[in-house]
């Protein structure tokens, strides 16, 4: 059953009805819920409906000098709801973290149609459990997020990217260690091979002075060729999903070595590699029985999609 509600109340009714009948929900289209409800620049917070695309949201925030510092692939089509349910991230993750770090409140409709509103609109709040967290990366399996409130960041005065082409992974590995040992505070720390050779990419953001100082330091380490994040966009233009390997950050070179030359983009600082290699990724050791209990509690009739790992 596909749902396309015009309002939250309508979604609530549709879900309650489907739940009573035990009808499975295959998709929920929230295109009608696509507005910024509130952007309080003086509080650095904003509340947005889940059907709005990330690009549209960022465009509104930018008018008042702020942004949500999360940069996942396909922002033109990715909705806030999908960003939350997939917990997507991009190259700036090293500097800014993930969407859960910015989420301070939400509204969600549970499988039986009940509307809940965990969290709030203030940046610091420990009243009640941090219930919003289970919906981040929850793939819509526990409920449908319809609204979210985020804390924001000011747009940096300047943001610049530089890269160095490396002849070998060993060279890249040495460079990574040098950058991590230095005083640099990059927001992007990526390694990729999408242009044929290995490219090590650094991104700096902040005041003009901070960025200029870091460009000097990076240049001294040999990372000075002007760059952009086009490699990441292009990598994702060719696909909507990729295989992912997640390792201890210090094992990133070793993990890349195991990819047999497949195309990859690696978040070096986070230990995450997106790649083309078809070998099955290693399953992480997860508390699956707890996942099951959570699903059974919030969606006892299993009408919402199952979590896929």
């Amino acid at each position, binding site marked *: 059953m596909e749902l396309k509600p015009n309002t939250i109340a309508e979604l609530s009714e549709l879900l309650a009805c489907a739940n009573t009948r035990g009808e499975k929900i295959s998709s929920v289209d929230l295109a009608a819920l696509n507005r910024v409800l509130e952007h*309080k620049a*003086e*509080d*650095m917070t904003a509340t947005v409906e889940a059907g709005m695309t990330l690009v549209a949201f960022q465009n509104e925030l930018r008018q008042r*000098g702020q942004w949500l510092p999360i940069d996942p692939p396909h922002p033109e089509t990715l909705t806030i709801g999908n960003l939350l349910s997939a*917990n997507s991230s991009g190259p700036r993750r090293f500097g800014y*973290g993930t969407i*859960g*770090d910015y989420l301070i409140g939400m509204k969600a409709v*549970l499988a039986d149609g*009940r*509307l*809940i*509103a*965990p969290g*709030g*609109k*203030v*940046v*610091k*709040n*420990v*009243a*009640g*459990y*941090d*219930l919003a*967290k*289970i919906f*981040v*990366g929850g793939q819509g399996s*526990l409920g449908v997020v319809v609204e979210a409130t985020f804390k924001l960041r*000011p*747009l940096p005065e300047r943001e610049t990217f530089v890269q160095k082409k490396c002849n070998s992974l060993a060279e890249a590995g040495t460079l990574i260690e040098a950058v*991590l040992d230095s*005083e640099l*505070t990059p927001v992007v720390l990526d390694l990729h091979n999408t242009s044929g050779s290995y490219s090590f990419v650094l991104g700096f953001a*902040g*005041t*003009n*002075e*901070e960025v*200029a*100082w*870091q460009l000097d330091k990076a240049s001294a380490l040999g990372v000075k060729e002007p760059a952009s994040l086009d490699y990441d966009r292009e990598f994702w233009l060719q696909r909507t999903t990729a295989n*992912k390997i*997640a390792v*201890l*950050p210090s094992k990133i070179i070793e993990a890349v070595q195991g990819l047999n030359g497949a195309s990859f983009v690696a978040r070096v600082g*986070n230990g*995450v590699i997106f790649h083309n290699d078809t070998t099955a990724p290693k399953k*992480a050791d*997860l508390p*699956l029985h*707890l*996942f099951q209990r*959570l699903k059974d*509690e*919030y969606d006892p009739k299993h009408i919402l999609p199952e*979590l896929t790992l």
Partner: protein
Amino acid sequence: MHPEGKTSLSPRIVDAFMAIVGKENVVYGEQELLVYECDAYTLEKNLPNVVLLPRSTDQISQVVKICAQEKLPIIPRGAGTSLSGSVLAVTGGVMICLSRMNRVLDIDFRNRRALVEAGCVNAWVTNAAKQKGFLYAPDPSSQSACTIGGNVAMNSGGPHTLKRGVTTNHVLGFEIVFPDGEIVWLGTRPDGSEDVPGYDLRGAVIGCEGMFGIVTRVLVKLIKAPQAYKTLLGIFESVDEASQTVSDIIAAGIVPGAMEMMDQMITQAVEAAYHFGFPLDAGAVLIVELDGLAAGLDKQADRVVEICKKNKAREVRIAKSEQERMDLWKSRKRAFGAIGRLSPNFLTQDGVVPRSQLPEIMRFIRQTSDKYGLRIPNVFHAGDGNIHPLILYDERDPQQVKNAVAAGNDILERCIELGGSATGEHGIGVEKIDFMAKQFSKETLDAMKMLRRVFDPETRCNPHKMFPGSKRCGDFAGKKQISA
């Protein structure tokens, strides 16, 4: 439990506990148990039946299994510095105190993480990491005593959360013993990636106020210590002008590491206690700490000075040395301690408002102070909109005790009306139970209870907390109240 709801414990079970943790790690007997009758919220007190001081996760699991068999309440406890009765043994029960599991187990500088036992004191983590230029960011004012496990339970904050976030943003994963005795690791493992697929159970447990299980080992994120600090002290004629300065700094696109305010009454008390050199006649002082790379920090500091001046700051001082900076922070973090000079007792509140509503809530607190005839000094995390009004009263006057509680309630209700929260970092505990229904719908509260059922279906772990309708201690307004 017998009819009054008090837990009873047979000697046979105490013997079983002794066999697991060792006789010397069992506190049993009314006099010895007094230390554990409350946390820093002293208006409600009750004794646990027994306190256990285990030394390993395995011991905790064994003890918890016995509690499960015997249907005994379990109350996890760190250092007991919480401020809302979160570790109160409402109906007695088995208190499991993590204070003897307090080691920093491993620091992995390359991967910027540290593995510690849950009873490890917050400040010890940074102490262990700082020689290599790293620190653990969340810094509650009680950081020299409070434990990392307690921080996980409460999702603790501190002055420096404005830029860097709170505990949940800095804890990668942890080991937890659930109320049935099962030991599970949630989130990132010590040798694993920060990217963990599936539901964020780590995030769901952080801030559960010890109601889901007992956290035993914690993997925390370390961050590079800032290359430079600029710590400014703005001296203002009024709290309004200082509050406006906070809003203007944020509006200018500057995110300081911390922005802390102290009003006149607190400033005077702190000055009397620590002699930092605060002016006694200023309406408010604002501490603004900028941190990051040294490059450009001076220019940012100049802008902050400019914004302070625009809001009629009488004077803006800049800490000239690391020692001066440390002294300033020491004064701020010990502000609560200085209150002993003003009043035999005080009640700390912990409301939050949107930053832009700070002037409004400060006006309201002044009115409330007049209404109840109680002095209410303020020291708070202005940058986060997290206020800490300290309601001064004398426990020997029952009317004052009543008024203090009423004043606190009025202020928190106003915070909620202004779009905020009844607690920014101290938690609900037993103290703020009545605010849950004011802040959340029944559906939302029910959804929170569903989360609890996932981890503790018998609601035996830290029971009678957080949710409206919970059992309260009969012993309200204490007999052995101490001035904190």
